[in-house]
Protein backbone atom coordinates (compact mmCIF):
# COMPACT_ATOMS: atom_id res chain seq x y z
CA UNK A 1 0.00 0.00 0.00
CA UNK A 2 2.79 2.35 1.02
CA UNK A 3 4.67 1.47 -2.19
CA UNK A 4 1.59 2.23 -4.28
CA UNK A 5 1.26 5.63 -2.58
CA UNK A 6 4.90 6.51 -3.30
CA UNK A 7 4.58 5.46 -6.96
CA UNK A 8 1.35 7.46 -7.35
CA UNK A 9 3.03 10.49 -5.79
CA UNK A 10 6.00 10.24 -8.17
CA UNK A 11 3.70 9.87 -11.19
CA UNK A 12 1.67 12.87 -10.01
CA UNK A 13 4.79 15.00 -9.55
CA UNK A 14 6.11 13.94 -12.95
CA UNK A 15 2.82 14.86 -14.60
CA UNK A 16 2.76 18.24 -12.87
CA UNK A 17 6.35 19.04 -13.91
CA UNK A 18 5.68 18.03 -17.52
CA UNK A 19 2.49 20.07 -17.55
CA UNK A 20 4.15 23.20 -16.25
CA UNK A 21 7.12 22.73 -18.60
CA UNK A 22 4.77 22.53 -21.55
CA UNK A 23 3.08 25.74 -20.51
CA UNK A 24 6.34 27.44 -19.70
CA UNK A 25 7.36 27.16 -23.36
CA UNK A 26 4.16 28.82 -24.49
CA UNK A 27 3.24 32.27 -23.26
CA UNK A 28 -0.03 34.01 -23.63
CA UNK A 29 1.19 35.42 -26.95
CA UNK A 30 2.50 32.21 -28.46
CA UNK A 31 5.53 29.99 -28.04
CA UNK A 32 8.51 31.41 -26.19
CA UNK A 33 11.27 30.04 -28.36
CA UNK A 34 13.81 32.09 -30.27
CA UNK A 35 12.21 32.79 -33.63
CA UNK A 36 15.37 34.32 -35.14
CA UNK A 37 17.31 31.21 -34.31
CA UNK A 38 14.36 29.12 -35.45
CA UNK A 39 14.51 30.65 -38.90
CA UNK A 40 18.16 29.73 -39.24
CA UNK A 41 17.62 26.21 -37.87
CA UNK A 42 14.67 25.63 -40.19
CA UNK A 43 16.70 26.64 -43.25
CA UNK A 44 19.65 24.60 -42.03
CA UNK A 45 17.44 21.49 -41.93
CA UNK A 46 16.73 21.87 -45.63
CA UNK A 47 20.32 22.60 -46.54
CA UNK A 48 21.37 19.35 -44.85
CA UNK A 49 18.43 17.54 -46.39
CA UNK A 50 19.28 18.82 -49.88
CA UNK A 51 22.92 17.90 -49.37
CA UNK A 52 21.80 14.36 -48.59
CA UNK A 53 19.84 14.35 -51.82
CA UNK A 54 16.44 13.93 -50.18
CA UNK A 55 15.06 17.19 -51.58
CA UNK A 56 16.09 19.09 -54.67
CA UNK A 57 16.18 22.62 -53.30
CA UNK A 58 17.94 24.02 -50.25
CA UNK A 59 15.08 26.47 -49.85
CA UNK A 60 12.27 25.15 -47.66
CA UNK A 61 9.01 24.72 -49.54
CA UNK A 62 6.81 25.68 -46.60
CA UNK A 63 6.67 29.25 -45.34
CA UNK A 64 5.24 30.41 -42.00
CA UNK A 65 2.78 32.56 -43.96
CA UNK A 66 1.25 29.42 -45.49
CA UNK A 67 -0.90 28.87 -42.39
CA UNK A 68 -2.45 30.72 -39.50
CA UNK A 69 -1.13 30.84 -35.96
CA UNK A 70 -3.83 28.38 -34.88
CA UNK A 71 -2.91 25.94 -37.60
CA UNK A 72 0.77 26.05 -36.69
CA UNK A 73 -0.12 25.59 -33.05
CA UNK A 74 -2.01 22.46 -33.92
CA UNK A 75 0.80 21.11 -36.11
CA UNK A 76 3.53 21.69 -33.58
CA UNK A 77 1.55 20.50 -30.58
CA UNK A 78 0.65 17.26 -32.32
CA UNK A 79 4.11 17.06 -33.90
CA UNK A 80 2.69 16.23 -37.31
CA UNK A 81 5.67 17.22 -39.41
CA UNK A 82 5.00 14.88 -42.36
CA UNK A 83 4.29 17.73 -44.79
CA UNK A 84 7.74 19.17 -44.15
CA UNK A 85 9.54 16.13 -45.56
CA UNK A 86 13.14 15.55 -44.49
CA UNK A 87 11.92 13.33 -41.65
CA UNK A 88 15.35 12.19 -40.55
CA UNK A 89 16.57 15.76 -40.18
CA UNK A 90 13.46 16.72 -38.23
CA UNK A 91 13.91 13.74 -35.94
CA UNK A 92 17.45 14.83 -35.19
CA UNK A 93 16.36 18.25 -33.89
CA UNK A 94 16.36 18.92 -30.15
CA UNK A 95 13.20 20.05 -28.35
CA UNK A 96 14.66 23.54 -28.13
CA UNK A 97 15.32 23.60 -31.88
CA UNK A 98 11.72 22.54 -32.57
CA UNK A 99 10.43 25.17 -30.15
CA UNK A 100 12.52 27.82 -31.93
CA UNK A 101 11.15 26.72 -35.31
CA UNK A 102 7.64 26.72 -33.88
CA UNK A 103 8.17 30.28 -32.64
CA UNK A 104 9.37 31.31 -36.08
CA UNK A 105 6.30 29.81 -37.75
CA UNK A 106 3.85 31.11 -35.16
CA UNK A 107 5.27 34.66 -35.06
CA UNK A 108 5.26 34.96 -38.83
CA UNK A 109 2.04 33.10 -39.62
CA UNK A 110 -0.39 34.57 -42.16
CA UNK A 111 -2.58 36.11 -39.45
CA UNK A 112 0.33 37.27 -37.26
CA UNK A 113 1.29 40.96 -36.99
CA UNK A 114 4.40 40.21 -39.06
CA UNK A 115 3.62 37.54 -41.66
CA UNK A 116 6.69 36.09 -43.34
CA UNK A 117 7.46 37.37 -46.80
CA UNK A 118 9.27 35.14 -49.26
CA UNK A 119 12.54 36.14 -47.55
Amino acid at each position, binding site marked *: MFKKCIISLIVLMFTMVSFSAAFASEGSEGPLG*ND*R*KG*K*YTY*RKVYKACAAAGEVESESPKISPADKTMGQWKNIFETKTFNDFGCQENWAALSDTDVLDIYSYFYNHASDSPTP*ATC*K
Partner: protein
Amino acid sequence: MKTKKIARFILALIFGLVLTTGCTATKPAKIAETDTQDMSWMYHDIVDAEFVAEHLSIPMPENVMLIDARPYKGKYVKGHIPGAVNIPFSEFDKKIALLPADKNTLLIYYCEGLKCKLSHKSAKKAEKMGYTNVKVYAKGYPEWVSQKGHYAAVSAEQVARQIDENTAMIIDSRPQKTKFNKGHIPTAVNIPFSQFETLKGKLPRDLDTPIVFYCGGLKCRLSHKSAAKALEMGYTRVTVFAKGYPEWKKIYGAATETLQVKAGEVEGSIDLGLFKSIIANRPESILLIDVRDADEFAKGSFKTAVNIPVEILEPKIKTFADDKPIIFVCSTGARSGEAFYMTQDVRESLKDVFYVEAEIDFKKDGNIEIKAPK
Protein backbone atom coordinates in the same frame (compact mmCIF):
# COMPACT_ATOMS: atom_id res chain seq x y z
CA MET B 1 87.40 17.62 -109.25
CA LYS B 2 90.07 20.26 -108.75
CA THR B 3 87.66 23.04 -109.76
CA LYS B 4 85.13 21.83 -107.17
CA LYS B 5 87.78 21.90 -104.44
CA ILE B 6 88.77 25.45 -105.38
CA ALA B 7 85.11 26.52 -105.41
CA ARG B 8 84.55 25.02 -101.92
CA PHE B 9 87.71 26.76 -100.65
CA ILE B 10 86.55 30.13 -101.98
CA LEU B 11 83.09 29.68 -100.45
CA ALA B 12 84.59 28.79 -97.10
CA LEU B 13 86.88 31.79 -97.31
CA ILE B 14 83.98 34.14 -98.09
CA PHE B 15 81.93 32.68 -95.20
CA GLY B 16 84.84 33.04 -92.85
CA LEU B 17 85.43 36.62 -93.95
CA VAL B 18 81.80 37.52 -93.49
CA LEU B 19 81.81 36.08 -89.96
CA THR B 20 85.05 37.77 -89.01
CA THR B 21 83.97 41.11 -90.44
CA GLY B 22 80.63 40.86 -88.69
CA CYS B 23 82.27 40.26 -85.30
CA THR B 24 84.91 42.92 -85.61
CA ALA B 25 82.35 45.42 -86.86
CA THR B 26 80.15 44.95 -83.78
CA LYS B 27 82.82 45.31 -81.13
CA PRO B 28 84.22 48.68 -82.15
CA ALA B 29 80.67 49.98 -82.52
CA LYS B 30 79.96 49.17 -78.87
CA ILE B 31 83.21 50.62 -77.67
CA ALA B 32 82.59 53.69 -79.76
CA GLU B 33 79.15 54.02 -78.20
CA THR B 34 80.63 53.89 -74.69
CA ASP B 35 83.44 56.20 -75.65
CA THR B 36 81.09 58.85 -76.89
CA GLN B 37 79.03 58.83 -73.65
CA ASP B 38 80.01 61.53 -71.22
CA MET B 39 80.18 59.74 -67.91
CA SER B 40 81.64 62.66 -66.02
CA TRP B 41 78.34 63.23 -64.19
CA MET B 42 78.78 59.90 -62.39
CA TYR B 43 80.13 59.84 -58.87
CA HIS B 44 83.43 58.02 -58.50
CA ASP B 45 82.49 55.55 -55.76
CA ILE B 46 79.72 53.20 -56.88
CA VAL B 47 78.40 50.34 -54.76
CA ASP B 48 76.02 47.46 -55.48
CA ALA B 49 72.89 46.09 -53.79
CA GLU B 50 74.94 43.65 -51.74
CA PHE B 51 76.91 46.51 -50.21
CA VAL B 52 73.69 48.32 -49.36
CA ALA B 53 72.16 45.20 -47.82
CA GLU B 54 75.28 44.68 -45.66
CA HIS B 55 74.88 48.11 -44.16
CA LEU B 56 71.14 48.04 -43.63
CA SER B 57 69.55 47.07 -40.37
CA ILE B 58 66.40 47.85 -38.42
CA PRO B 59 66.84 50.28 -36.78
CA MET B 60 69.50 51.84 -38.98
CA PRO B 61 72.97 52.03 -37.38
CA GLU B 62 74.08 55.50 -36.29
CA ASN B 63 77.15 55.50 -38.51
CA VAL B 64 75.22 54.77 -41.73
CA MET B 65 72.69 56.92 -43.58
CA LEU B 66 70.87 55.66 -46.64
CA ILE B 67 69.59 58.62 -48.64
CA ASP B 68 66.89 58.61 -51.30
CA ALA B 69 67.63 61.55 -53.61
CA ARG B 70 64.35 61.26 -55.55
CA PRO B 71 61.37 63.61 -55.18
CA TYR B 72 59.21 63.03 -52.12
CA LYS B 73 55.66 62.96 -53.51
CA GLY B 74 56.03 61.13 -56.79
CA LYS B 75 58.64 58.60 -55.74
CA TYR B 76 59.65 58.29 -52.08
CA VAL B 77 56.10 58.18 -50.76
CA LYS B 78 55.13 55.32 -53.07
CA GLY B 79 58.14 53.19 -52.27
CA HIS B 80 61.70 53.43 -51.02
CA ILE B 81 64.42 51.21 -49.63
CA PRO B 82 63.57 50.46 -45.97
CA GLY B 83 65.54 52.71 -43.64
CA ALA B 84 66.15 55.40 -46.27
CA VAL B 85 65.86 59.08 -45.44
CA ASN B 86 64.48 61.34 -48.17
CA ILE B 87 66.63 64.30 -49.18
CA PRO B 88 65.60 65.13 -52.76
CA PHE B 89 68.46 66.66 -54.72
CA SER B 90 66.25 69.66 -55.51
CA GLU B 91 65.97 70.28 -51.76
CA PHE B 92 69.54 69.42 -50.83
CA ASP B 93 70.37 72.82 -49.37
CA LYS B 94 67.01 73.21 -47.68
CA LYS B 95 67.27 69.87 -45.92
CA ILE B 96 70.95 69.99 -45.14
CA ALA B 97 70.20 69.72 -41.43
CA LEU B 98 69.05 66.15 -41.95
CA LEU B 99 72.59 65.06 -42.75
CA PRO B 100 74.54 63.65 -39.79
CA ALA B 101 76.93 65.86 -37.83
CA ASP B 102 79.65 63.23 -37.97
CA LYS B 103 81.39 63.71 -41.32
CA ASN B 104 82.73 60.15 -41.20
CA THR B 105 79.26 58.67 -41.36
CA LEU B 106 78.77 56.36 -44.32
CA LEU B 107 76.36 58.08 -46.72
CA ILE B 108 74.81 55.87 -49.40
CA TYR B 109 72.84 57.79 -52.01
CA TYR B 110 70.47 56.21 -54.48
CA CYS B 111 67.78 57.28 -56.92
CA GLU B 112 65.87 55.82 -59.86
CA GLY B 113 68.53 53.64 -61.54
CA LEU B 114 71.50 53.91 -63.86
CA LYS B 115 70.22 56.87 -65.86
CA CYS B 116 69.28 58.88 -62.79
CA LYS B 117 71.76 61.61 -61.90
CA LEU B 118 70.20 62.81 -58.65
CA SER B 119 72.15 60.50 -56.35
CA HIS B 120 75.45 61.25 -58.09
CA LYS B 121 74.93 65.00 -57.86
CA SER B 122 73.94 64.72 -54.20
CA ALA B 123 76.98 62.56 -53.41
CA LYS B 124 79.31 65.09 -55.00
CA LYS B 125 77.76 67.88 -52.96
CA ALA B 126 78.06 65.89 -49.78
CA GLU B 127 81.70 65.16 -50.53
CA LYS B 128 82.34 68.84 -51.08
CA MET B 129 80.82 69.50 -47.67
CA GLY B 130 83.50 67.32 -46.14
CA TYR B 131 81.81 63.94 -45.84
CA THR B 132 84.57 61.38 -46.17
CA ASN B 133 82.66 58.17 -46.74
CA VAL B 134 80.13 58.76 -49.53
CA LYS B 135 78.89 56.08 -51.92
CA VAL B 136 76.28 55.86 -54.66
CA TYR B 137 74.14 52.82 -55.21
CA ALA B 138 73.82 53.54 -58.92
CA LYS B 139 71.33 50.85 -59.90
CA GLY B 140 69.14 52.28 -57.17
CA TYR B 141 65.53 51.64 -56.26
CA PRO B 142 64.42 49.76 -59.42
CA GLU B 143 67.08 47.10 -58.89
CA TRP B 144 66.51 46.93 -55.15
CA VAL B 145 62.80 46.11 -55.35
CA SER B 146 63.25 43.68 -58.21
CA GLN B 147 65.59 41.46 -56.20
CA LYS B 148 64.27 38.34 -54.53
CA GLY B 149 63.49 38.79 -50.86
CA HIS B 150 63.50 42.59 -51.09
CA TYR B 151 60.50 44.79 -50.45
CA ALA B 152 59.81 48.49 -50.43
CA ALA B 153 58.92 50.75 -47.57
CA VAL B 154 56.02 53.17 -48.04
CA SER B 155 54.97 56.40 -46.37
CA ALA B 156 51.84 57.25 -44.42
CA GLU B 157 50.35 59.11 -47.38
CA GLN B 158 50.59 56.01 -49.53
CA VAL B 159 48.94 53.87 -46.82
CA ALA B 160 46.14 56.44 -46.50
CA ARG B 161 45.64 56.38 -50.27
CA GLN B 162 45.53 52.60 -50.34
CA ILE B 163 42.96 52.56 -47.55
CA ASP B 164 40.90 55.18 -49.30
CA GLU B 165 40.96 53.30 -52.60
CA ASN B 166 40.65 49.93 -50.89
CA THR B 167 43.62 48.62 -52.85
CA ALA B 168 45.70 46.95 -50.15
CA MET B 169 45.39 44.83 -47.06
CA ILE B 170 46.88 46.57 -44.02
CA ILE B 171 48.42 44.25 -41.43
CA ASP B 172 49.30 45.33 -37.90
CA SER B 173 52.15 43.10 -36.71
CA ARG B 174 52.03 44.27 -33.08
CA PRO B 175 50.64 42.29 -30.14
CA GLN B 176 46.86 42.41 -29.86
CA LYS B 177 46.07 43.21 -26.23
CA THR B 178 48.86 45.64 -25.39
CA LYS B 179 49.05 47.49 -28.69
CA PHE B 180 46.46 46.77 -31.37
CA ASN B 181 43.44 46.98 -29.08
CA LYS B 182 44.59 50.36 -27.82
CA GLY B 183 44.59 51.85 -31.30
CA HIS B 184 45.47 50.95 -34.85
CA ILE B 185 45.27 52.16 -38.42
CA PRO B 186 41.69 51.97 -39.77
CA THR B 187 40.87 48.74 -41.62
CA ALA B 188 44.05 47.07 -40.31
CA VAL B 189 43.93 43.37 -39.57
CA ASN B 190 45.94 42.20 -36.60
CA ILE B 191 48.45 39.41 -37.20
CA PRO B 192 50.96 39.72 -34.36
CA PHE B 193 54.34 38.47 -35.53
CA SER B 194 54.50 36.12 -32.55
CA GLN B 195 51.37 34.40 -33.89
CA PHE B 196 52.19 34.70 -37.58
CA GLU B 197 52.23 30.97 -38.21
CA THR B 198 48.86 30.36 -36.58
CA LEU B 199 47.15 33.46 -37.95
CA LYS B 200 48.63 33.63 -41.45
CA GLY B 201 45.35 32.25 -42.76
CA LYS B 202 44.00 35.79 -42.38
CA LEU B 203 46.20 36.87 -45.28
CA PRO B 204 44.44 37.13 -48.67
CA ARG B 205 44.24 34.10 -50.92
CA ASP B 206 45.42 36.04 -53.96
CA LEU B 207 49.22 36.21 -53.73
CA ASP B 208 49.23 39.36 -55.88
CA THR B 209 47.18 41.36 -53.38
CA PRO B 210 49.16 44.37 -52.16
CA ILE B 211 49.95 43.96 -48.46
CA VAL B 212 51.28 46.64 -46.12
CA PHE B 213 52.79 45.55 -42.81
CA TYR B 214 53.36 48.03 -40.02
CA CYS B 215 54.23 48.04 -36.34
CA GLY B 216 55.55 50.50 -33.74
CA GLY B 217 57.88 52.68 -35.79
CA LEU B 218 61.41 52.77 -37.12
CA LYS B 219 62.88 50.76 -34.25
CA CYS B 220 60.26 48.03 -34.53
CA ARG B 221 61.25 44.93 -36.49
CA LEU B 222 57.96 43.04 -36.34
CA SER B 223 56.58 44.39 -39.61
CA HIS B 224 59.86 43.67 -41.41
CA LYS B 225 59.98 40.11 -40.11
CA SER B 226 56.36 39.62 -41.12
CA ALA B 227 57.06 41.02 -44.59
CA ALA B 228 59.93 38.57 -45.01
CA LYS B 229 57.61 35.71 -44.07
CA ALA B 230 54.94 36.89 -46.50
CA LEU B 231 57.53 37.00 -49.29
CA GLU B 232 58.55 33.45 -48.42
CA MET B 233 54.90 32.46 -48.74
CA GLY B 234 54.90 33.79 -52.30
CA TYR B 235 53.19 37.16 -51.89
CA THR B 236 54.43 39.40 -54.68
CA ARG B 237 53.41 42.90 -53.59
CA VAL B 238 54.65 43.21 -50.03
CA THR B 239 55.53 46.58 -48.53
CA VAL B 240 56.27 47.90 -45.05
CA PHE B 241 55.08 51.14 -43.55
CA ALA B 242 58.27 51.39 -41.51
CA LYS B 243 57.41 54.54 -39.56
CA GLY B 244 54.34 52.67 -38.45
CA TYR B 245 51.61 53.60 -36.01
CA PRO B 246 53.48 56.48 -34.26
CA GLU B 247 53.80 58.26 -37.61
CA TRP B 248 50.19 57.51 -38.49
CA LYS B 249 49.02 58.99 -35.19
CA LYS B 250 51.16 62.06 -35.75
CA ILE B 251 49.68 62.73 -39.20
CA TYR B 252 46.13 61.47 -38.96
CA GLY B 253 45.50 61.53 -35.23
CA ALA B 254 44.68 58.67 -32.92
CA ALA B 255 42.99 56.02 -34.95
CA THR B 256 40.15 53.72 -34.23
CA GLU B 257 40.16 52.15 -30.87
CA THR B 258 38.53 48.79 -30.75
CA LEU B 259 34.92 49.21 -29.89
CA GLN B 260 33.31 47.46 -26.97
CA VAL B 261 29.81 46.57 -28.08
CA LYS B 262 27.00 46.51 -25.56
CA ALA B 263 24.50 43.76 -26.23
CA GLY B 264 20.79 44.48 -26.52
CA GLU B 265 17.92 42.76 -24.71
CA VAL B 266 17.41 40.07 -27.34
CA GLU B 267 20.09 37.41 -27.69
CA GLY B 268 22.71 38.40 -30.25
CA SER B 269 21.35 41.89 -30.78
CA ILE B 270 23.26 45.13 -30.30
CA ASP B 271 21.94 47.81 -27.97
CA LEU B 272 19.94 50.03 -30.28
CA GLY B 273 21.08 53.31 -28.74
CA LEU B 274 24.67 52.26 -29.12
CA PHE B 275 24.09 51.22 -32.72
CA LYS B 276 22.61 54.62 -33.57
CA SER B 277 25.54 56.34 -31.89
CA ILE B 278 28.08 54.24 -33.79
CA ILE B 279 26.41 54.99 -37.10
CA ALA B 280 26.38 58.70 -36.31
CA ASN B 281 29.86 59.08 -34.88
CA ARG B 282 32.23 56.26 -35.73
CA PRO B 283 30.77 53.99 -38.40
CA GLU B 284 34.26 52.83 -39.42
CA SER B 285 34.71 51.13 -36.05
CA ILE B 286 32.43 48.24 -37.04
CA LEU B 287 32.08 45.94 -40.00
CA LEU B 288 28.47 46.59 -40.98
CA ILE B 289 27.01 43.89 -43.21
CA ASP B 290 23.65 44.47 -44.83
CA VAL B 291 22.15 41.04 -45.56
CA ARG B 292 19.23 42.24 -47.65
CA ASP B 293 18.99 41.49 -51.35
CA ALA B 294 21.06 43.58 -53.75
CA ASP B 295 18.03 45.39 -55.17
CA GLU B 296 16.89 46.46 -51.70
CA PHE B 297 20.41 47.56 -50.83
CA ALA B 298 20.61 49.63 -54.02
CA LYS B 299 17.53 51.58 -53.01
CA GLY B 300 19.04 52.72 -49.73
CA SER B 301 21.64 51.65 -47.24
CA PHE B 302 24.01 52.77 -44.49
CA LYS B 303 27.04 54.50 -46.03
CA THR B 304 29.62 52.14 -44.60
CA ALA B 305 27.62 48.95 -45.06
CA VAL B 306 28.72 46.16 -47.35
CA ASN B 307 26.02 44.09 -49.00
CA ILE B 308 26.12 40.32 -48.59
CA PRO B 309 22.62 38.87 -49.00
CA VAL B 310 21.94 36.20 -46.39
CA GLU B 311 21.48 33.57 -49.11
CA ILE B 312 25.13 33.84 -50.11
CA LEU B 313 26.56 34.72 -46.71
CA GLU B 314 27.58 31.32 -45.35
CA PRO B 315 30.70 30.63 -47.46
CA LYS B 316 31.94 34.17 -46.85
CA ILE B 317 31.84 33.98 -43.06
CA LYS B 318 35.20 32.28 -42.80
CA THR B 319 36.85 35.22 -44.59
CA PHE B 320 35.70 37.87 -42.10
CA ALA B 321 38.45 39.64 -40.18
CA ASP B 322 37.98 39.66 -36.41
CA ASP B 323 39.63 42.98 -35.70
CA LYS B 324 36.40 44.86 -35.17
CA PRO B 325 32.83 44.01 -34.23
CA ILE B 326 30.63 42.63 -36.99
CA ILE B 327 27.06 43.92 -37.08
CA PHE B 328 24.43 42.41 -39.37
CA VAL B 329 21.57 44.58 -40.47
CA CYS B 330 18.43 44.18 -42.58
CA SER B 331 15.01 45.82 -42.49
CA THR B 332 13.34 43.92 -39.63
CA GLY B 333 15.91 41.79 -37.82
CA ALA B 334 14.71 38.57 -39.43
CA ARG B 335 17.48 38.10 -41.96
CA SER B 336 20.14 39.78 -39.84
CA GLY B 337 19.13 37.50 -36.97
CA GLU B 338 19.48 34.52 -39.25
CA ALA B 339 22.90 35.83 -40.28
CA PHE B 340 23.90 36.12 -36.62
CA TYR B 341 22.97 32.50 -35.84
CA MET B 342 24.57 31.33 -39.07
CA THR B 343 27.84 33.00 -38.01
CA GLN B 344 27.58 31.44 -34.55
CA ASP B 345 27.11 28.06 -36.15
CA VAL B 346 29.70 28.31 -38.91
CA ARG B 347 32.43 30.17 -37.02
CA GLU B 348 31.95 29.88 -33.30
CA SER B 349 35.31 31.52 -32.58
CA LEU B 350 34.05 34.84 -33.91
CA LYS B 351 32.82 36.44 -30.69
CA ASP B 352 32.15 40.07 -31.48
CA VAL B 353 29.13 39.50 -33.71
CA PHE B 354 25.72 41.15 -33.34
CA TYR B 355 22.63 41.98 -35.32
CA VAL B 356 20.23 44.88 -35.24
CA GLU B 357 16.85 43.86 -33.85
CA ALA B 358 14.84 46.78 -35.17
CA GLU B 359 12.61 47.98 -37.93
CA ILE B 360 14.75 49.99 -40.30
CA ASP B 361 13.16 52.14 -42.93
CA PHE B 362 15.52 53.21 -45.69
CA LYS B 363 13.68 56.22 -47.07
CA LYS B 364 13.82 57.51 -50.63
CA ASP B 365 15.33 60.83 -49.54
CA GLY B 366 18.30 58.98 -48.02
CA ASN B 367 17.14 59.24 -44.43
CA ILE B 368 17.12 56.09 -42.36
CA GLU B 369 14.61 55.57 -39.59
CA ILE B 370 15.49 53.01 -36.92
CA LYS B 371 12.65 51.92 -34.65
CA ALA B 372 12.76 49.52 -31.73
CA PRO B 373 10.69 46.36 -32.28
CA LYS B 374 7.10 46.48 -30.99
